[in-house]
């Protein structure tokens, strides 16, 4: 048993050394950000446009906090393959999400022209 104990005080594979402090600070920061965003919405403190921006900023900060404190991104030894893969994923996700919103928003605005609606209602709808 004691031999096993010694063998396991080595760092976790791919994660490195862990500290209680990192987990506690990550947890506290996440709590503060979650409750902050919740209060912003429930108390209706700001206008719609500001609210969307604030919610997104808070979500992204919490994403960053948990990536650093819980998933230890950036703590790996060089070469940083995990970080490289992560950045590739972020690029793909941004293309996917922003692209979808762009295309569908564009389609929506083209499809809702008054002439077309008039035409469609004159034909008895779809």
């Amino acid at each position, binding site marked *: *048993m004691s*031999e*096993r*104990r*010694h*063998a*396991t*005080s*080595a*760092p*976790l*594979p*791919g*994660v490195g*050394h*862990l*500290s*209680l*402090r990192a*987990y506690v600070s*990550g*947890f506290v920061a*996440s*709590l503060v950000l*979650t*409750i902050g*965003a*919740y209060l912003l*919405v*429930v108390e*209706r403190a700001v206008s*719609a446009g500001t*609210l*969307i921006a604030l*919610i*997104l900023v*808070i*979500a992204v900060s*919490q*994403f960053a906090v*948990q*990536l650093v404190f*819980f*998933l230890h991104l950036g703590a790996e030894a060089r070469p940083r*393959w*995990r970080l490289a*893969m*992560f950045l*590739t*994923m972020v690029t*793909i*996700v941004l293309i*996917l*999400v922003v692209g*979808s*919103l762009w295309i*569908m928003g564009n389609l929506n605005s083209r499809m809702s022209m008054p002439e077309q609606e008039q035409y469609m209602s004159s034909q008895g709808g779809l």
Partner: protein
Amino acid sequence: MIRVEAHPAPVDAHAAEADERTVFGFWVYILTDCVLFASLFATYVVLHGNTAGGPSGHQLFEMPYVLAETMALLASSFTCGLAMLAAVRGRTRLAVVALALTFALGSTFLALELSEFHHLAVIGAGWSRSGFLSAYFILVGTHGLHITVGLLWMAVVAARIWWSGLGRGELRRLTLFGIFWHFLDLVWIFIFSVVYLMGAAHL
């Protein structure tokens, strides 16, 4: 905080390298799962206004309830981190207790989510009611499915640690599970923000 210094135990360099590769491979899987969730998010955001005369998120979501769900999952992510911390320091019993706590919090989350789904289905806001609700159930349901798989996996990992101690294999399994569980918490942050907060704010 007392730090237990690493004893220079004979570490098999090949085994360590193999472990590193395994963790990297799992990380790549996690990132492809991120892309899956991103496509579901894109679908949801495109469809969130298409309520077909049915209820909108603003009318359906009960925010204190969702906050409780979020807190349960966030706390479970923290206790999962504590389990890894205990495992690295060779504290078998503490690691299993922390995993049990994680399991309890994760199950609480899942129970709250299922009862919310049930409530929506009963009041006539099921997944076939509108495009908005289809996208909502697929996105949140896929996350719930991941949580279910995670709970089963966690039970297996905890049982193995309980019976065979903290060997190299158990540590590796715990590391992979930890990455998976923290990842699910990350996805939930975006579900909480984009689906629930923006839905409740009528954005």
